[in-house]
């Protein structure tokens, strides 16, 4: 991406390099959210529904992990995937896959912790009725996730927000390689260090616009679903 254009210019010119960056940003953050959802929602729900010694500790830990510093996560994954690290043989360092892994690690606790809270609030209402129906743990989790699905959208969006905005981790494990692992956020960081603040801000606005669009989409689906469910 050449520094000489304004962001608007880039959008209009249809600079393929630019669109490649946008595409990669979306792929990385959306896949991260997808994986984080598949892991985090059931885990959060299960935590909300099961009593066991040390549950409070786990909850606190989970809440705390919403504050995992990107740079630290980035470094940890970096050392893991590094050639001289345990998973070095996979050769994933400085690839988009590595970025997805890093973001998944960061987003999962957010989605899990928020899910736990939402499900627990609904659980207060359902507990006795489900217990009386002798509903087993698995179906219980499934039921509460399903019945809380509209509220859970917000949790997923919080996770997506974190993933879309995140730069610290992916720049370490991805390397911000031009045309390969460069995303909107890493590009913004680069333009900033080049001192091209207008372009950086411009790209930022483009990114925010995209994030808004995706949120709008998600909300539309949610409302439609709600209306249909009556």
């Amino acid at each position, binding site marked *: 991406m050449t520094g000489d254009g304004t962001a608007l210019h880039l959008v209009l010119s249809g600079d393929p390099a630019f669109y490649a960056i946008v595409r990669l940003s979306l792929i990385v953050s959306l896949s991260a959210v997808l994986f984080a959802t598949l892991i985090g929602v059931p885990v959060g729900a299960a935590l909300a529904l099961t009593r066991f010694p040390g549950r409070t500790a786990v909850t606190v830990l989970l809440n705390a992990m919403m504050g995992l510093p990107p740079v630290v996560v980035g470094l940890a994954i970096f050392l893991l995937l590094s050639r001289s690290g345990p998973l070095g043989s996979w050769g994933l360092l400085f690839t988009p896959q590595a970025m997805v892994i890093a973001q998944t690690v960061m987003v999962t606790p957010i989605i899990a912790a928020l899910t736990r809270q939402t499900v627990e609030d609904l659980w207060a209402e359902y507990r006795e009725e489900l217990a009386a129906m*002798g509903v087993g743990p698995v179906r219980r989790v499934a039921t509460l996730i399903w019945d809380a699905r509209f509220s859970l959208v917000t949790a997923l969006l919080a996770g997506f927000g974190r993933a879309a905005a995140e730069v610290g981790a992916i720049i370490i494990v991805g390397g911000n390689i031009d045309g390969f692992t460069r995303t909107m956020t890493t590009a913004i960081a680069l333009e900033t260090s080049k001192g091209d603040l207008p372009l950086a801000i411009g790209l930022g606005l483009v990114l925010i616009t995209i994030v808004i669009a995706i949120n709008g989409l998600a909300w539309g689906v949610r409302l439609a679903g709600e209306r249909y469910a*009556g």
Partner: protein
Amino acid sequence: MRAPATDLPVTLADVTIAAGAVTILDDITMTISPGGPTVLIGPNGSGKTTLLRVAMGLVSPTRGRITWGGREAVPPVKRAIVFQRPTMLRRSAAGNVRYALAAANAPRATRDARVAELLALVGLAHLGHRPARRLSGGEQQRLALARALAREPELLLLDEPTASLDPAATKAIEDIVRAIAARGVKVVMSTHDLGQARRLAGDIALLHRGRLIEAGPAEAFFAQPQTQEARTFIAGELLV
């Protein structure tokens, strides 16, 4: 998936339930054995709902013990309860019944038929598609009964099952209760309608302030109550 052994009789031995400083049930000893419906009566706050929740196994005694067919902590496979304020799952009326059937592992093939059958039984056949939470108070109470019957329980606990039902529905439900009791299902229900108690009860248990004041066969209880409290309560006077 039903356990072979039976849940009956349910035996409470010196059962006390306390919540913090409050004693909700106070040293209750009673046996719920097969036979005609056992009807719990007593003023508001006397402990009827709590007693039913204990019998369902939803709260375990602070002191004392409860056994089902002689065993402790038996999962509620053969028991069902209709709460005083049933919670409607975020599904259609039919969906709620179907859910109960699934939870009870009723054979998949038969479910749709059972759903229709149960809705008809409680007079909601025409409301199957309606979101359960939009149902009227009485309709919700009927749906809750349908959900409970879906479990084909051996012990059925009903907490003021006709409190918000219209006269005709009340009759209908009373008939249902008689019918299933005749089929050998043990019914334990609470009510504030003494007429209803007279009509349905095999045994009566009078609760007051968490204590079991008097219990025994219905005729005897209404004919010559043994305690002052019983006489006062039957007369519809305030128990103090």
